[in-house]
């Protein structure tokens, strides 16, 4: 009889534990979120002066690094617990999927296709495609004036194609390996214009001596730089958006831009964050 009784108690206890476990599991979230992490691996660019470059010491510097550090700070991750890695446009969806990086701040414009494949927070900045010319060249006032001009075309980017194909402006494309190279050739009069997002132009303009080049203040696109997160991390996305809102409200965004670029020709930054993509 004692054995029966003990067995009954064990069965009841086991069932009670089962109830508790089921109740607990049912309330548990499935996706791990960047909002809960103590350390973060962040993908940034390493070849865009002013935006993201690698220093000789191997660390990363630039506007995107600053923004990422600010946002991570708001997520409760201190600078010491951050690790930056270089990431290239073709790789970062895969890197996010494999969990090699937690967040990506890499000058990537938000597109409808992108939003289907990863969760996108931000934009943290709305860049505008602009034109960089020699300071003494007054013949180029807006994108239409590029007709017949020699325009730098960097391998793997669409900026020059956008002007020539989408806007039907018959500029003469001149291939170049990088934007830094474009800037040098522009100053050396081997080219008439370089077109890219304003932050990229401001960054490379700073690499050319004696303000020999200027940005034409006639932006003609809106490029919304998004933050990549693992697909489904809605909570993390909301937390990042909140951090970006604070970054604009507090004036930190403005400070970062002024310190990083300080170049005339950049659009004014307001105290309101750009329209977010939404964390669906």
């Amino acid at each position, binding site marked *: 009889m004692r054995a029966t*009784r003990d067995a*009954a108690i064990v*069965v*009841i206890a086991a*069932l*009670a534990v*089962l*109830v508790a476990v*089921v*109740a607990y599991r*049912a*309330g548990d979230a499935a996706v791990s979120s960047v909002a809960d992490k103590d350390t973060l691996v962040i993908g940034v660019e390493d070849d865009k002066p002013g935006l993201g470059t690698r220093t000789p010491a191997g660390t990363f510097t630039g506007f995107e690094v600053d923004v990422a550090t600010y946002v991570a700070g708001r997520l409760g991750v201190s600078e010491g617990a951050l690790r930056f890695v270089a990431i290239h446009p073709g790789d970062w969806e895969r890197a996010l999927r494999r969990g090699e990086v937690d967040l990506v701040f890499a000058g990537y414009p938000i597109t*409808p*296709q992108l939003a*289907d494949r990863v969760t996108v927070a931000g934009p943290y900045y709305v860049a*505008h495609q602009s034109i960089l010319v020699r300071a003494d060249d007054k013949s180029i006032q*807006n*994108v*239409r004036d590029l007709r017949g001009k020699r325009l730098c075309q960097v391998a793997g980017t669409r900026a020059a194609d*956008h002007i020539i*194909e*989408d*806007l039907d402006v018959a500029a003469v494309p001149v291939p170049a390996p990088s934007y830094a190279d474009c800037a040098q050739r522009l100053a050396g009069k081997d080219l008439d214009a370089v077109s890219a997002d304003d932050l990229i132009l401001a960054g490379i303009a700073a690499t050319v001596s004696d303000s020999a080049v200027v940005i034409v203040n*006639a*932006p*003609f*696109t*809106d490029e919304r730089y998004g933050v990549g997160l693992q697909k489904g991390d*809605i*909570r993390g996305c*909301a937390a990042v*958006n*909140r951090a970006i*809102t*604070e970054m604009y*409200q507090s004036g930190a965004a403005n400070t970062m831009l002024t310190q990083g670029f300080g170049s005339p020709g950049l659009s*004014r930054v*307001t*105290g*309101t*964050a*750009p*329209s*977010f993509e*939404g*964390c669906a």
Partner: protein
Amino acid sequence: MARRLFRLRTVPGRVRMLTACALLAVGGLISVTAVGLWQARDGLRTLGTADGRTVIAGAGLYGALTDMDLQVTNVLLTGQEAGWLCEPEAADQDQAAPADETGQAPQDDAACDRAPARVLYEIRRETAQQAALAAARLADGDPVRLGTVRAVLDGLHQYDQRVRAAMELGQQAEHPLGMPPAAAVARYRFATALMTEELLPGAYNLTLDGQASVHAAYEDRRAAARAGMVQAVVAGGLAIAILAGLQIYLGFRFRRVLNPALAVATLGVLALTLTSGVLLSAEARDMRVAKVGFDQALALSRAQSIGTSMDADRGRFLLDPGNADRYDQLYLDKAQSILYLPVTKLAAYHALLGGRLDRYGDDSRVADFGGFYGAEARTVADRANGAQAAREPFAALLSRYGRYQRTDRQVRELAAAGRRTDAAIAHMDPDDPTLAHRDLRAYNDGLSTLITHHQYLTDRTVQDAQRAMTAWTWLLPAAFLVIAALIVAGVGPRLKEYR
């Protein structure tokens, strides 16, 4: 006391112990069901009445602002500045005294007709202010969100002033339709920068925040309701097992084949368990239906505002040719977010759109476009299950969107040919040049109908589900009392034998 009651070495002690366990398990079943139902009810309330409504109202902020932007752009484009600046109330007051003396209203030059666009602007401004207050309420003390609300409210005041400055400069110089003076355009740009870079993003993000709050509450409540379902089944199973054990033990000890009261109680628990499971899963399903409807209504109202803003971008394209390429690009970006096609040029978008829409018209399973309407097409297909009638309203909306884009093509062709005045006339309504184009209005009306339809479905789902639940507030305790009474009735006489 407990020790005496449950002296497990004695037969009555064991019977009492099992009875208490059975009662506890039944009580557990009732409690988890009640909690699950309460959670579901709260989730439905959030979607149908409380926060859901506020979020929809908050979305009105974005809609109102885009409308204000459009009115201002069109007035400047069509040279109605004088009507815009007209203050009839002020004029009435000035003339009040002389009118009394002569008994007739003086025919004064000061009397003016306020432009309909200005009247609409004032109405929408009031909506914007109300909606900002709704957003503030929803922010629930969150300083970051309140900061955004404050920025929007402050910006609204500043926007009024900048618009006024542009209108005054536009009024000073006679200008042909579609070609306001450069100084007025410069002022207008200043006002537009405030609208498009601060007011609209702030309003848009507030709507997103509100939607995120509702989404989080929904996920939470729905998970709770589903967990309640599992818990109810486990608790019910446990109660049945204990009652069966009690039945067997009594049969073995007292040499009876069946204890009728206990058997009925067991059947009662079984029925209650099944009912709880079915009820809670139905509630979880209703919540999902209501949430889908809520999301659709919100997405479409966002699409509506983006469409209005797109029309304003076309107005800017005509008004400010110096920045035409940028406004063109913004127009395309907005069209792409409403209905995405894999192109990078507006001309290509126009060229591709007709064919894609016709294909959808022929066969609703083929929705080869993305954006808000791609998502809506998928939801419609899910819900319609192949039924032609269910997708009719959405197909009609798409054809109105197609018509709007065809008009856009004509406007741009006129502009490209250098006929700026004709392009400005084509941008406005052909019957009444003070109104936005009738294709835009027809398209917006179609959207409004669909939004109202989704909201109605959500509200009805919520109300039906809530009505289905009301009876359970007394059914659950009653069921507990009946089952408990049956158990006690089944066990009591056996225990008496030991007195």
